[in-house]
Protein backbone atom coordinates (compact mmCIF):
# COMPACT_ATOMS: atom_id res chain seq x y z
CA UNK A 1 0.00 0.00 0.00
CA UNK A 2 1.28 3.44 -0.93
CA UNK A 3 1.82 6.14 1.69
CA UNK A 4 0.89 9.38 0.06
CA UNK A 5 2.86 12.52 0.71
CA UNK A 6 4.37 15.51 -0.97
CA UNK A 7 7.68 17.14 -1.71
CA UNK A 8 7.80 20.93 -1.92
CA UNK A 9 10.75 22.47 -3.69
CA UNK A 10 11.40 25.84 -2.05
CA UNK A 11 13.85 26.73 -4.82
CA UNK A 12 10.91 26.75 -7.20
CA UNK A 13 8.27 28.37 -5.00
CA UNK A 14 7.62 31.99 -5.94
CA UNK A 15 5.04 32.67 -3.22
CA UNK A 16 2.20 33.25 -5.70
CA UNK A 17 -0.40 31.54 -3.49
CA UNK A 18 -1.91 29.75 -6.48
CA UNK A 19 -1.95 26.65 -4.26
CA UNK A 20 -3.89 28.57 -1.61
CA UNK A 21 -6.51 29.59 -4.16
CA UNK A 22 -6.70 26.18 -5.82
CA UNK A 23 -7.26 24.58 -2.44
CA UNK A 24 -9.95 27.15 -1.64
CA UNK A 25 -11.68 26.46 -4.93
CA UNK A 26 -11.46 22.69 -4.63
CA UNK A 27 -12.60 22.47 -1.03
CA UNK A 28 -14.74 25.59 -0.71
CA UNK A 29 -13.63 26.15 2.87
CA UNK A 30 -15.40 28.79 4.99
CA UNK A 31 -14.05 32.27 5.55
CA UNK A 32 -10.69 32.36 7.30
CA UNK A 33 -9.98 28.64 6.86
CA UNK A 34 -7.12 27.72 4.55
CA UNK A 35 -6.02 24.11 4.25
CA UNK A 36 -3.07 25.28 2.14
CA UNK A 37 -1.31 28.58 2.70
CA UNK A 38 2.05 30.19 2.10
CA UNK A 39 3.81 31.56 5.16
CA UNK A 40 5.81 34.60 4.16
CA UNK A 41 8.70 36.10 6.03
CA UNK A 42 10.71 39.22 5.36
CA UNK A 43 14.34 38.98 6.40
CA UNK A 44 17.28 41.29 6.30
CA UNK A 45 17.74 44.98 6.83
CA UNK A 46 17.04 47.55 4.13
CA UNK A 47 18.37 47.56 1.46
CA UNK A 48 19.61 43.97 1.83
CA UNK A 49 16.21 42.38 2.30
CA UNK A 50 14.35 39.47 0.83
CA UNK A 51 11.20 37.46 1.24
CA UNK A 52 11.13 33.75 1.95
CA UNK A 53 8.13 31.57 1.28
CA UNK A 54 7.06 28.39 2.98
CA UNK A 55 4.00 26.67 1.52
CA UNK A 56 2.32 24.68 4.28
CA UNK A 57 -0.49 22.16 4.46
CA UNK A 58 -1.38 19.22 6.68
CA UNK A 59 1.72 17.02 6.89
CA UNK A 60 -0.37 13.84 7.03
CA UNK A 61 2.00 12.63 9.73
CA UNK A 62 2.59 8.92 10.18
CA UNK A 63 2.42 9.51 13.95
CA UNK A 64 -0.29 12.15 13.70
CA UNK A 65 -0.72 13.77 17.13
CA UNK A 66 -4.19 14.99 16.11
CA UNK A 67 -5.35 11.41 15.61
CA UNK A 68 -3.73 10.40 18.88
CA UNK A 69 -5.42 13.22 20.80
CA UNK A 70 -8.88 12.68 19.34
CA UNK A 71 -11.05 11.16 22.10
CA UNK A 72 -13.73 9.88 19.74
CA UNK A 73 -11.66 8.40 16.93
CA UNK A 74 -13.12 10.97 14.52
CA UNK A 75 -9.63 11.71 13.23
CA UNK A 76 -8.16 8.63 11.62
CA UNK A 77 -5.34 7.63 9.29
CA UNK A 78 -6.28 5.77 6.12
CA UNK A 79 -4.14 2.80 5.08
CA UNK A 80 -2.62 5.03 2.38
CA UNK A 81 -1.50 7.53 5.03
CA UNK A 82 -4.06 10.27 4.44
CA UNK A 83 -5.31 11.73 7.72
CA UNK A 84 -9.04 12.42 7.60
CA UNK A 85 -11.88 13.48 9.92
CA UNK A 86 -15.22 11.71 10.21
CA UNK A 87 -17.47 14.71 10.87
CA UNK A 88 -20.23 12.50 12.26
CA UNK A 89 -17.94 11.46 15.11
CA UNK A 90 -16.36 14.86 15.82
CA UNK A 91 -17.62 16.54 19.00
CA UNK A 92 -15.73 19.82 18.55
CA UNK A 93 -13.51 19.45 21.63
CA UNK A 94 -10.58 20.97 19.74
CA UNK A 95 -8.07 18.55 21.26
CA UNK A 96 -6.69 18.06 17.75
CA UNK A 97 -6.20 21.80 17.33
CA UNK A 98 -3.89 22.01 20.32
CA UNK A 99 -2.24 18.70 19.45
CA UNK A 100 -1.07 19.72 15.97
CA UNK A 101 2.24 21.61 16.17
CA UNK A 102 1.73 22.84 12.61
CA UNK A 103 -1.64 24.49 13.25
CA UNK A 104 -3.21 22.64 10.35
CA UNK A 105 -6.46 21.76 12.08
CA UNK A 106 -9.41 24.09 11.61
CA UNK A 107 -12.48 24.51 13.77
CA UNK A 108 -15.73 25.44 12.03
CA UNK A 109 -17.16 27.86 14.58
CA UNK A 110 -20.89 28.17 15.05
CA UNK A 111 -22.38 30.60 12.52
CA UNK A 112 -19.42 30.33 10.16
CA UNK A 113 -21.37 28.46 7.51
CA UNK A 114 -24.17 30.98 7.46
CA UNK A 115 -22.25 33.60 5.50
CA UNK A 116 -19.78 33.61 2.67
CA UNK A 117 -16.90 35.90 1.87
CA UNK A 118 -17.99 39.50 2.34
CA UNK A 119 -21.69 38.71 2.17
CA UNK A 120 -24.46 38.00 4.64
CA UNK A 121 -25.72 35.03 2.67
CA UNK A 122 -24.10 32.29 0.59
CA UNK A 123 -23.20 32.27 -3.07
CA UNK A 124 -24.54 29.25 -5.02
CA UNK A 125 -21.00 27.81 -4.95
CA UNK A 126 -20.68 28.24 -1.19
CA UNK A 127 -24.15 26.82 -0.64
CA UNK A 128 -23.04 23.58 -2.30
CA UNK A 129 -19.52 23.40 -0.89
CA UNK A 130 -20.52 24.22 2.68
CA UNK A 131 -22.68 21.09 2.71
CA UNK A 132 -19.43 19.16 3.19
CA UNK A 133 -18.87 20.85 6.54
CA UNK A 134 -20.68 20.92 9.83
CA UNK A 135 -20.61 23.72 12.35
CA UNK A 136 -19.00 22.84 15.67
CA UNK A 137 -16.67 20.25 14.15
CA UNK A 138 -13.09 20.18 12.98
CA UNK A 139 -11.91 20.03 9.40
CA UNK A 140 -8.55 19.65 7.75
CA UNK A 141 -6.68 19.15 4.50
CA UNK A 142 -7.74 15.83 2.98
CA UNK A 143 -4.83 15.78 0.53
CA UNK A 144 -7.72 15.98 -1.94
CA UNK A 145 -8.63 12.37 -1.09
CA UNK A 146 -11.62 12.31 -3.48
CA UNK A 147 -9.29 13.35 -6.32
CA UNK A 148 -6.58 10.92 -5.24
CA UNK A 149 -9.13 8.10 -5.17
CA UNK A 150 -9.88 8.89 -8.83
CA UNK A 151 -6.20 8.72 -9.70
CA UNK A 152 -5.78 12.50 -9.83
CA UNK A 153 -3.29 14.69 -8.00
CA UNK A 154 -4.28 17.19 -5.28
CA UNK A 155 -5.50 20.57 -6.53
CA UNK A 156 -2.54 22.46 -5.08
CA UNK A 157 -0.14 20.19 -6.98
CA UNK A 158 -1.74 20.48 -10.41
CA UNK A 159 -2.14 24.24 -10.01
CA UNK A 160 1.42 25.12 -9.01
CA UNK A 161 2.81 27.12 -11.97
CA UNK A 162 6.42 26.29 -11.14
CA UNK A 163 5.93 22.60 -10.37
CA UNK A 164 7.22 23.20 -6.89
CA UNK A 165 4.92 20.52 -5.49
CA UNK A 166 5.41 16.87 -6.26
CA UNK A 167 2.82 14.36 -5.07
CA UNK A 168 3.24 10.62 -4.76
CA UNK A 169 4.16 7.63 -2.63
CA UNK A 170 6.80 8.70 -0.13
CA UNK A 171 7.69 5.11 0.75
CA UNK A 172 8.27 3.81 -2.75
CA UNK A 173 12.06 3.29 -2.88
CA UNK A 174 12.04 3.71 -6.65
CA UNK A 175 9.57 6.58 -6.68
CA UNK A 176 10.33 10.17 -7.62
CA UNK A 177 9.72 11.44 -4.10
CA UNK A 178 12.27 9.15 -2.46
CA UNK A 179 14.82 10.11 -5.11
CA UNK A 180 14.31 13.81 -4.53
CA UNK A 181 14.38 13.47 -0.74
CA UNK A 182 17.61 11.49 -0.85
CA UNK A 183 19.40 13.47 -3.56
CA UNK A 184 18.48 16.89 -2.23
CA UNK A 185 18.45 16.17 1.48
CA UNK A 186 14.75 16.68 2.02
CA UNK A 187 13.64 17.77 5.46
CA UNK A 188 10.39 18.10 7.37
CA UNK A 189 9.00 20.86 9.54
CA UNK A 190 9.67 20.82 13.28
CA UNK A 191 11.25 17.35 13.39
CA UNK A 192 11.75 17.71 17.15
CA UNK A 193 8.02 16.98 17.59
CA UNK A 194 8.54 13.43 16.26
CA UNK A 195 5.32 13.34 14.26
CA UNK A 196 6.92 11.80 11.14
CA UNK A 197 5.46 14.25 8.61
CA UNK A 198 4.94 13.08 5.03
CA UNK A 199 5.40 16.52 3.51
CA UNK A 200 9.06 17.12 2.74
CA UNK A 201 10.86 20.30 1.74
CA UNK A 202 13.83 20.79 -0.58
CA UNK A 203 16.06 23.82 -0.57
CA UNK A 204 19.31 22.51 -2.04
Amino acid at each position, binding site marked *: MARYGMVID*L*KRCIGCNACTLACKQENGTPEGI*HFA*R*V*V*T*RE*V*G*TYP*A*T*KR*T*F*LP*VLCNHCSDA*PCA*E*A*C*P*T*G*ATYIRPDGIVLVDKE*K*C*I*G*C*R*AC*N*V*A*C*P*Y*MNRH*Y*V*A*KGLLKHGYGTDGLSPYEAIKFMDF*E*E*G*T*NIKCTLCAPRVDQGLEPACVVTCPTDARIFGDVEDPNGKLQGLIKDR*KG*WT*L*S*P*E*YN*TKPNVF*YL*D*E
Partner: protein
Amino acid sequence: MRSSAGSEGEKVTTPSVGIANHRFAYGYYRQTFWNWLIGTAFFLGGLGAGLFVLGLLTDHTAGMLAGYLIVVVGKNTAHMLFLGRPERFWRAAMRPDRSWIARGIWAMGLFAASGLILLLPRVFGPAWQLSGWLNGAATAVAVLSAIIIMFYDGFVMNSSPGVAFWRTHLLPLLLLMYATLGGTTLSVTIHELRGEPTPGFLPNLEHWLLLVNFVLLAVYLARMNRSLPAARETLHQLLSGPYARVFFGLVLLVGLFATLLLLIVENHVQATWLVVLIAVCELTGDFTLVMVLLKSGLFPLQTAPAYGAGGI
Protein backbone atom coordinates in the same frame (compact mmCIF):
# COMPACT_ATOMS: atom_id res chain seq x y z
CA MET B 1 18.53 40.57 15.73
CA ARG B 2 20.55 37.60 14.58
CA SER B 3 22.55 36.63 11.53
CA SER B 4 21.94 33.44 9.64
CA ALA B 5 22.68 31.92 6.29
CA GLY B 6 19.89 32.53 3.80
CA SER B 7 18.77 30.04 1.22
CA GLU B 8 21.29 31.32 -1.30
CA GLY B 9 24.09 31.29 1.24
CA GLU B 10 24.39 35.07 1.71
CA LYS B 11 24.40 36.60 5.17
CA VAL B 12 21.21 38.37 6.11
CA THR B 13 20.19 39.93 9.39
CA THR B 14 17.02 38.42 10.70
CA PRO B 15 14.71 40.34 13.03
CA SER B 16 13.68 38.66 16.27
CA VAL B 17 10.66 36.44 15.86
CA GLY B 18 7.43 37.77 17.30
CA ILE B 19 3.83 36.69 17.58
CA ALA B 20 2.14 36.14 14.21
CA ASN B 21 -1.09 38.07 13.84
CA HIS B 22 -2.45 35.98 10.97
CA ARG B 23 -1.86 32.54 9.56
CA PHE B 24 0.10 33.67 6.54
CA ALA B 25 2.62 35.48 8.71
CA TYR B 26 5.76 34.00 10.15
CA GLY B 27 6.05 33.81 13.91
CA TYR B 28 4.68 32.12 16.98
CA TYR B 29 0.95 31.54 16.95
CA ARG B 30 -1.09 31.95 20.12
CA GLN B 31 -3.20 29.08 21.38
CA THR B 32 -6.77 30.36 20.99
CA PHE B 33 -8.68 27.09 20.65
CA TRP B 34 -9.12 26.31 24.33
CA ASN B 35 -10.79 29.35 25.84
CA TRP B 36 -12.18 30.53 29.19
CA LEU B 37 -14.87 27.84 29.20
CA ILE B 38 -12.26 25.09 29.24
CA GLY B 39 -10.31 27.10 31.83
CA THR B 40 -13.46 27.33 33.97
CA ALA B 41 -14.10 23.60 33.57
CA PHE B 42 -10.53 22.74 34.61
CA PHE B 43 -10.70 25.12 37.56
CA LEU B 44 -14.09 23.93 38.80
CA GLY B 45 -13.15 20.26 38.36
CA GLY B 46 -10.05 20.59 40.53
CA LEU B 47 -11.75 22.77 43.11
CA GLY B 48 -14.87 20.64 43.46
CA ALA B 49 -13.06 17.31 43.56
CA GLY B 50 -10.56 18.67 46.10
CA LEU B 51 -13.38 19.97 48.27
CA PHE B 52 -15.24 16.65 48.05
CA VAL B 53 -12.20 14.62 49.11
CA LEU B 54 -11.51 16.95 52.04
CA GLY B 55 -15.20 16.84 52.98
CA LEU B 56 -15.03 13.05 53.05
CA LEU B 57 -11.82 13.11 55.10
CA THR B 58 -13.31 15.52 57.66
CA ASP B 59 -16.78 13.94 57.58
CA HIS B 60 -18.23 17.25 56.44
CA THR B 61 -21.43 16.80 54.44
CA ALA B 62 -21.75 20.45 53.37
CA GLY B 63 -18.25 20.37 51.86
CA MET B 64 -18.92 17.07 50.12
CA LEU B 65 -22.21 18.34 48.70
CA ALA B 66 -20.70 21.63 47.52
CA GLY B 67 -17.74 19.81 45.93
CA TYR B 68 -20.05 17.31 44.25
CA LEU B 69 -22.24 20.06 42.77
CA ILE B 70 -19.23 22.09 41.62
CA VAL B 71 -17.96 19.09 39.65
CA VAL B 72 -21.20 17.54 38.43
CA VAL B 73 -23.02 20.77 37.61
CA GLY B 74 -20.27 23.39 37.22
CA LYS B 75 -17.52 21.50 35.42
CA ASN B 76 -19.86 19.52 33.21
CA THR B 77 -21.86 22.61 32.22
CA ALA B 78 -18.68 24.45 31.22
CA HIS B 79 -17.57 21.44 29.16
CA MET B 80 -20.91 21.13 27.43
CA LEU B 81 -21.02 24.83 26.63
CA PHE B 82 -17.54 24.55 25.12
CA LEU B 83 -18.15 21.54 22.90
CA GLY B 84 -19.00 22.23 19.29
CA ARG B 85 -21.43 19.29 19.20
CA PRO B 86 -22.45 18.72 22.84
CA GLU B 87 -25.15 16.22 21.85
CA ARG B 88 -22.37 13.81 20.87
CA PHE B 89 -20.41 14.20 24.13
CA TRP B 90 -20.78 10.49 24.90
CA ARG B 91 -18.50 9.70 21.99
CA ALA B 92 -15.61 11.23 23.93
CA ALA B 93 -15.74 8.30 26.35
CA MET B 94 -15.01 5.78 23.61
CA ARG B 95 -11.20 5.64 23.80
CA PRO B 96 -10.12 5.49 27.47
CA ASP B 97 -7.18 3.34 26.40
CA ARG B 98 -5.61 6.26 24.52
CA SER B 99 -7.20 9.57 25.46
CA TRP B 100 -7.04 11.46 28.75
CA ILE B 101 -10.25 13.25 27.79
CA ALA B 102 -11.97 9.86 27.64
CA ARG B 103 -10.44 8.85 30.99
CA GLY B 104 -11.66 12.11 32.46
CA ILE B 105 -15.20 11.45 31.28
CA TRP B 106 -15.14 8.00 32.86
CA ALA B 107 -13.80 9.49 36.09
CA MET B 108 -16.56 12.12 36.11
CA GLY B 109 -19.22 9.49 35.45
CA LEU B 110 -17.94 7.26 38.26
CA PHE B 111 -17.63 10.26 40.55
CA ALA B 112 -21.21 11.35 39.83
CA ALA B 113 -22.55 7.87 40.64
CA SER B 114 -20.40 7.03 43.67
CA GLY B 115 -20.65 10.55 45.08
CA LEU B 116 -24.42 10.35 44.91
CA ILE B 117 -24.40 7.00 46.75
CA LEU B 118 -22.36 8.60 49.55
CA LEU B 119 -24.38 11.81 49.69
CA LEU B 120 -27.92 10.40 49.65
CA PRO B 121 -27.87 8.96 53.21
CA ARG B 122 -26.09 12.05 54.51
CA VAL B 123 -28.64 14.44 53.01
CA PHE B 124 -31.89 12.43 53.09
CA GLY B 125 -31.34 10.12 56.04
CA PRO B 126 -30.13 6.57 56.79
CA ALA B 127 -32.95 4.98 54.76
CA TRP B 128 -30.74 5.62 51.72
CA GLN B 129 -27.72 3.93 53.28
CA LEU B 130 -26.35 0.99 51.31
CA SER B 131 -24.91 -2.13 52.90
CA GLY B 132 -21.42 -1.94 54.38
CA TRP B 133 -19.32 -3.30 51.55
CA LEU B 134 -21.25 -1.36 48.87
CA ASN B 135 -20.73 1.83 50.82
CA GLY B 136 -17.03 1.01 51.17
CA ALA B 137 -16.74 0.36 47.46
CA ALA B 138 -18.54 3.63 46.67
CA THR B 139 -16.17 5.49 48.98
CA ALA B 140 -13.12 4.00 47.28
CA VAL B 141 -14.48 4.77 43.79
CA ALA B 142 -15.47 8.31 44.80
CA VAL B 143 -12.03 9.10 46.25
CA LEU B 144 -10.17 7.56 43.33
CA SER B 145 -12.30 9.26 40.68
CA ALA B 146 -12.13 12.60 42.51
CA ILE B 147 -8.33 12.41 42.60
CA ILE B 148 -8.28 11.62 38.87
CA ILE B 149 -10.53 14.65 38.24
CA MET B 150 -8.07 16.78 40.24
CA PHE B 151 -5.14 16.01 37.97
CA TYR B 152 -6.33 14.59 34.63
CA ASP B 153 -6.68 18.05 33.07
CA GLY B 154 -2.92 18.32 33.42
CA PHE B 155 -2.51 15.14 31.39
CA VAL B 156 -5.01 16.40 28.79
CA MET B 157 -2.84 19.50 28.35
CA ASN B 158 0.39 17.56 28.65
CA SER B 159 -0.64 15.19 25.85
CA SER B 160 -1.19 18.09 23.43
CA PRO B 161 2.20 18.33 21.73
CA GLY B 162 1.27 21.44 19.75
CA VAL B 163 1.78 23.64 22.79
CA ALA B 164 5.27 23.00 24.10
CA PHE B 165 4.63 24.94 27.32
CA TRP B 166 2.32 22.15 28.48
CA ARG B 167 4.70 19.31 27.68
CA THR B 168 5.85 18.33 31.13
CA HIS B 169 4.62 15.82 33.68
CA LEU B 170 4.93 18.57 36.28
CA LEU B 171 1.67 20.04 34.97
CA PRO B 172 -0.65 17.30 36.32
CA LEU B 173 1.17 17.50 39.65
CA LEU B 174 0.85 21.29 39.71
CA LEU B 175 -2.88 21.12 38.96
CA LEU B 176 -3.34 18.38 41.58
CA MET B 177 -1.68 20.51 44.24
CA TYR B 178 -3.64 23.60 43.24
CA ALA B 179 -6.86 21.56 43.35
CA THR B 180 -5.97 20.39 46.86
CA LEU B 181 -5.22 23.96 47.91
CA GLY B 182 -8.49 25.25 46.43
CA GLY B 183 -10.45 22.47 48.10
CA THR B 184 -8.77 23.15 51.45
CA THR B 185 -9.44 26.89 51.26
CA LEU B 186 -13.08 26.41 50.33
CA SER B 187 -13.51 23.76 53.03
CA VAL B 188 -12.20 26.16 55.69
CA THR B 189 -14.51 28.89 54.35
CA ILE B 190 -17.61 26.67 54.40
CA HIS B 191 -16.86 25.61 57.98
CA GLU B 192 -16.47 29.27 58.95
CA LEU B 193 -19.61 30.46 57.17
CA ARG B 194 -21.69 27.69 58.77
CA GLY B 195 -20.28 28.50 62.20
CA GLU B 196 -18.76 25.01 62.53
CA PRO B 197 -15.39 24.37 64.17
CA THR B 198 -12.70 24.03 61.52
CA PRO B 199 -10.64 20.82 61.80
CA GLY B 200 -7.25 21.85 63.11
CA PHE B 201 -5.18 20.38 60.29
CA LEU B 202 -6.91 22.34 57.51
CA PRO B 203 -5.32 25.79 58.11
CA ASN B 204 -1.91 24.12 58.54
CA LEU B 205 -2.44 22.20 55.30
CA GLU B 206 -3.34 25.47 53.58
CA HIS B 207 -0.08 27.08 54.77
CA TRP B 208 2.00 24.19 53.52
CA LEU B 209 0.20 23.91 50.21
CA LEU B 210 0.80 27.60 49.49
CA LEU B 211 4.54 27.07 49.95
CA VAL B 212 4.59 23.78 48.03
CA ASN B 213 2.63 25.32 45.13
CA PHE B 214 5.00 28.27 44.98
CA VAL B 215 7.98 25.92 44.75
CA LEU B 216 6.23 23.71 42.18
CA LEU B 217 5.36 26.74 40.08
CA ALA B 218 8.96 27.93 40.20
CA VAL B 219 10.24 24.47 39.23
CA TYR B 220 7.70 24.29 36.38
CA LEU B 221 8.81 27.64 34.97
CA ALA B 222 12.49 26.72 35.37
CA ARG B 223 11.80 23.45 33.54
CA MET B 224 10.15 25.37 30.69
CA ASN B 225 13.20 27.60 30.44
CA ARG B 226 15.16 24.52 29.35
CA SER B 227 12.46 23.18 27.05
CA LEU B 228 11.71 23.66 23.33
CA PRO B 229 11.98 27.16 21.78
CA ALA B 230 8.19 27.64 21.75
CA ALA B 231 8.06 26.86 25.49
CA ARG B 232 10.89 29.31 26.17
CA GLU B 233 9.12 31.98 24.14
CA THR B 234 5.89 31.30 26.05
CA LEU B 235 7.79 31.69 29.31
CA HIS B 236 9.23 34.96 28.03
CA GLN B 237 5.74 36.15 27.12
CA LEU B 238 4.43 35.08 30.51
CA LEU B 239 7.12 36.88 32.47
CA SER B 240 7.50 40.02 30.39
CA GLY B 241 4.75 39.98 27.77
CA PRO B 242 1.05 40.79 27.83
CA TYR B 243 0.26 38.20 30.51
CA ALA B 244 3.02 39.31 32.90
CA ARG B 245 0.80 41.67 34.92
CA VAL B 246 -1.88 39.03 35.33
CA PHE B 247 0.65 36.35 36.22
CA PHE B 248 2.65 38.39 38.73
CA GLY B 249 -0.35 40.31 40.05
CA LEU B 250 -3.04 37.69 40.37
CA VAL B 251 -1.26 34.32 40.38
CA LEU B 252 1.74 35.20 42.53
CA LEU B 253 0.86 38.35 44.49
CA VAL B 254 -2.83 37.76 45.16
CA GLY B 255 -3.06 33.97 44.83
CA LEU B 256 0.00 33.01 46.85
CA PHE B 257 1.64 35.88 48.76
CA ALA B 258 -1.47 37.84 49.80
CA THR B 259 -3.23 34.59 50.73
CA LEU B 260 -0.28 33.52 52.89
CA LEU B 261 -0.07 36.94 54.51
CA LEU B 262 -3.80 36.99 55.26
CA LEU B 263 -3.57 33.47 56.69
CA ILE B 264 -0.88 34.64 59.09
CA VAL B 265 -3.02 37.65 60.05
CA GLU B 266 -6.04 35.37 60.47
CA ASN B 267 -4.14 33.38 63.11
CA HIS B 268 -4.26 36.48 65.31
CA VAL B 269 -7.42 38.27 64.17
CA GLN B 270 -10.12 35.69 63.67
CA ALA B 271 -12.96 37.07 61.58
CA THR B 272 -15.33 35.57 59.05
CA TRP B 273 -14.74 38.34 56.52
CA LEU B 274 -11.01 37.58 56.66
CA VAL B 275 -11.62 33.90 55.90
CA VAL B 276 -13.82 34.88 52.95
CA LEU B 277 -11.17 37.32 51.72
CA ILE B 278 -8.53 34.56 51.91
CA ALA B 279 -10.77 32.31 49.82
CA VAL B 280 -11.37 35.04 47.25
CA CYS B 281 -7.63 35.71 46.94
CA GLU B 282 -6.62 32.06 46.73
CA LEU B 283 -9.33 31.06 44.27
CA THR B 284 -8.56 34.11 42.11
CA GLY B 285 -4.94 32.97 41.88
CA ASP B 286 -6.02 29.39 41.23
CA PHE B 287 -8.37 30.34 38.37
CA THR B 288 -5.93 32.84 36.88
CA LEU B 289 -3.14 30.27 36.83
CA VAL B 290 -5.26 27.88 34.77
CA MET B 291 -6.23 30.70 32.43
CA VAL B 292 -2.69 32.00 31.87
CA LEU B 293 -1.44 28.46 31.29
CA LEU B 294 -4.08 28.06 28.60
CA LYS B 295 -3.94 31.48 27.00
CA SER B 296 -0.20 32.10 27.00
CA GLY B 297 0.57 28.84 25.15
CA LEU B 298 2.30 29.27 21.79
CA PHE B 299 2.55 26.98 18.80
CA PRO B 300 6.06 26.40 17.47
CA LEU B 301 7.76 28.18 14.63
CA GLN B 302 7.80 26.29 11.35
CA THR B 303 11.47 25.44 11.63
CA ALA B 304 13.77 23.07 9.85
CA PRO B 305 17.36 22.01 10.45
CA ALA B 306 18.51 23.69 7.26
CA TYR B 307 17.43 27.08 8.52
CA GLY B 308 18.46 26.81 12.16
CA ALA B 309 16.46 28.04 15.11
CA GLY B 310 15.34 31.14 13.24
CA GLY B 311 13.08 29.14 10.95
CA ILE B 312 12.48 29.83 7.30
